[in-house]
């Protein structure tokens, strides 16, 4: 059962301070409402993974790693590779993350990232078939949250796409009934460069890329994933509260604009500076 979450008590004073600042279009860390934090991306952080990226978004640290394997395809998609996204809210990242089976937050996070990649068709899964109905590539994208200062979703999408973007795929050859791994590799091809934009709402004001104290103070957040062609492939309101249709439309516009900028920064190393 899902149960009302217990957020760490933010002192009334701190919440009031955030309100006061927002009224003046200011934020606790000096950013303007629609300003993103600085992003650093370290590609290939884990050599044992076929692809990996360590992303720092302010103090939020997310490590994404891709493991490539061979698997039997699902019965309803015999010609498609398998993509599995798994997120671990590692307890060293925050006093609120507990060891144990995946929490609803981690399931929610991994499913949102999964949708952002899958629906945008960033990976052409039909290109990952080796023998139809029998052998396909499997891509495990493991998200490891190492330090939590808000906005895990956007950081995780960026980390996943970067890790996929440098993934080396071992080549296999079919020999009769057997499938043999060769020494050759090929690069996994990205068909899109989606970015997620997350907004935190407090009293009908909002900021993009909330830090942790903004997330805790907020009524709810809205995340929107934008493809390179400015279309949307995932939207999600998260948390209680209500949003007016007018505000949703406003966010769609914001996300197209902000998405362009973010894409350039987030995938600079993949694209050589061209988003």
């Amino acid at each position, binding site marked *: 059962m899902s*149960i009302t979450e217990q957020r760490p008590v933010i002192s009334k004073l701190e919440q009031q301070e955030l309100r006061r600042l927002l009224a003046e279009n200011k934020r606790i860390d000096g950013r303007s409402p629609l300003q993103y934090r600085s992003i650093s991306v370290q590609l290939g952080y884990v050599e044992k993974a076929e692809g990996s990226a360590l992303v720092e978004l302010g103090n939020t640290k997310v490590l994404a790693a891709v493991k490539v394997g061979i698997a039997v395809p699902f019965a309803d998609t015999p010609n498609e590779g398998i993509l599995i996204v798994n997120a671990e809210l590692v307890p060293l990242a925050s006093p609120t993350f507990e060891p144990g089976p995946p929490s609803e937050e981690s399931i929610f996070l991994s499913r949102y990232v999964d949708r952002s990649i899958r629906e945008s068709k960033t990976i052409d899964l039909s290109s990952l078939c080796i023998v139809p109905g029998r052998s396909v590539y499997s891509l495990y994208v493991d998200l490891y949250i190492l330090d939590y200062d808000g906005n895990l979703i956007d950081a995780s999408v960026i980390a996943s796409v970067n890790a996929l973007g440098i993934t080396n795929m071992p080549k296999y050859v079919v020999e009769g009934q057997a499938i043999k791994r060769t020494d050759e590799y090929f690069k996994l091809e990205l068909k899109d460069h989606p970015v997620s934009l997350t907004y935190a709402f407090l009293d009908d004001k909002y900021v993009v890329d909330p830090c942790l104290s903004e997330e805790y103070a907020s009524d709810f957040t809205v995340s929107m994933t934008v493809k390179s062609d400015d279309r949307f492939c995932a939207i999600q309101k998260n948390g209680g509260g209500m949003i007016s*249709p007018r505000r949703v439309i406003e966010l769609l516009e914001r996300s197209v604009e902000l998405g362009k900028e973010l894409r350039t920064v987030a995938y600079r190393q993949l694209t050589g500076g061209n988003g």
Partner: protein
Amino acid sequence: MGENITLFSEDGKRTDGRALDELRPIKIKVGVLSNAQGSAYIEQGKNKILAAVYGPKEALPKHISLPDRCILRCRYHMAPFSTTERKSPAPSRREIELSMVLRNALEPLVMTSLFPRTVIDIFIEVLQADGGTRCAGLTAAVLALADAGIPLKGLAAACAVGKADGKIVVDLNDLEDKYGEADMPIAYNPTLDGITLLQMDGIMSKEEVEQALSLAITATQKMHKMQVDALRERFSVQRRET
């Protein structure tokens, strides 16, 4: 996905004969269970869904309670026989996510500060699934809350809108859900002009999302009326009984 499924007939009607902005037949009944404090049953297309509410009651263990308001617990669950292939009764990752999404969509409707230190349990059981179960489940759960006599800021009804074969449609059925381009479930309260549930999967442009949003608002307003009728019927029955 990849298969050549046609979602529209030559006269522009959908696979089940509906127009683009037409809801499936809906049947709602409030107060259908004897043990639950509140309950409701909905049929929407072939969806058959029960919702029940227990509470407010003491929150145990105490450390889950909140000093200034009541907390909600919510379980969305599909019966093993609700789908074409039998589903394991253990909660799937999807069910865990939807339990959270539905709790978040219901919480802003409840006047939680009236019942500090208590808990309200909301159970949604999908007996038969036909696309749009989370939305139909929410529509029923809101009524179960009202039936339990829990003060609400307002009702909300939910409906999926989306895109199928290039067209924006309302209340997707199972086929449109599976083979369409996008699915956007929305819960809306017309009085407060507030969306409490908003998700989108698939691909839509900004303009398409806007168009879908507008269809959703009209559709949920229609459903809102059915909710009110169902509550009225419930209370008139009760009155007759007393």
